């Protein structure tokens, strides 16, 4: 079996795992950003009250 066949198998598996991991990281970053925004807003409202 030619070497390219094995190389492309690794590319395929790496892309599958890589894309899902990238999406998980993006979700994590968005979560952190939203939590920060929520905390800032709550603090701001408390100060205004």
């Amino acid at each position, binding site marked *: *079996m*030619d070497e*390219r*066949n*094995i190389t*492309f*198998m690794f*590319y*395929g*598996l790496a*892309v*599958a*795992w890589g*894309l*899902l991991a990238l*999406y*998980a990281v993006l*979700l994590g970053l*968005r*979560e952190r950003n*939203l*939590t920060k*925004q*929520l905390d800032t*807003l*709550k603090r*701001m*409202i408390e100060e*205004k*009250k």
Partner: protein
Amino acid sequence: MRTKVILALGAIGLPLLLRNLYVIMFLVPDDLEQGPVYRIFYYHLPAFLVAMCGYITAMAASVLYLVKRDQKYDTIAVAATETALAFAAVNLITGMIWGRISWGIWWAWDARLTWALISWLVYFGYLMLRNAIDDPTERAKNTAVYSIFASASVAVTWKAIEWWRTQHPGPVLSIRTGGVQRIDPAMENMLYINTLALLLLGAIFLLVRLRQEEVQREIDGLRRYAHALN
């Protein structure tokens, strides 16, 4: 409660994903004709099935939103759409890598490939449309209608390998071939097991996205409140 469900799904799904990776890499034999590259198929097809589940969930949630006018269903629709797009991207790109070796080309304007790409673009358009509408009620109503129309492309994508016999392989799972065995039963079992693992991962993504949409709504509400305090 939702955090506990996410952790429970992760506790089952992540070890299963790692176990499947080990089995796919080291235990399953090479395909006689295709060689090792066929192992991509263990991610390509399950990712497609998870994406289909996401698109259908989005469609069902959109119908429920229009019937009940409950924001909860709009939240489910957007979370399911985004999750489906992530898995559909895995499906499309792994298919291209497999095609480069098996067909000698990265892409063919074959019926299934073309419709899978159209579906991806149509649902990406759904997310763009959401960003373009500011009013939450208008946004939910318009995008629900859009999502229901978009689901037609999902039905065509699903049936494309039966309606048009072009380059993409036809159905291989026995649940779609009426029990006819087109691949080795061991391969088919591995496909189902990895579909389960990716479904669990998809459910985690969906629940996290649901929580984020709810937090975003809370932020929008607090912004309006803060504005009224000025």
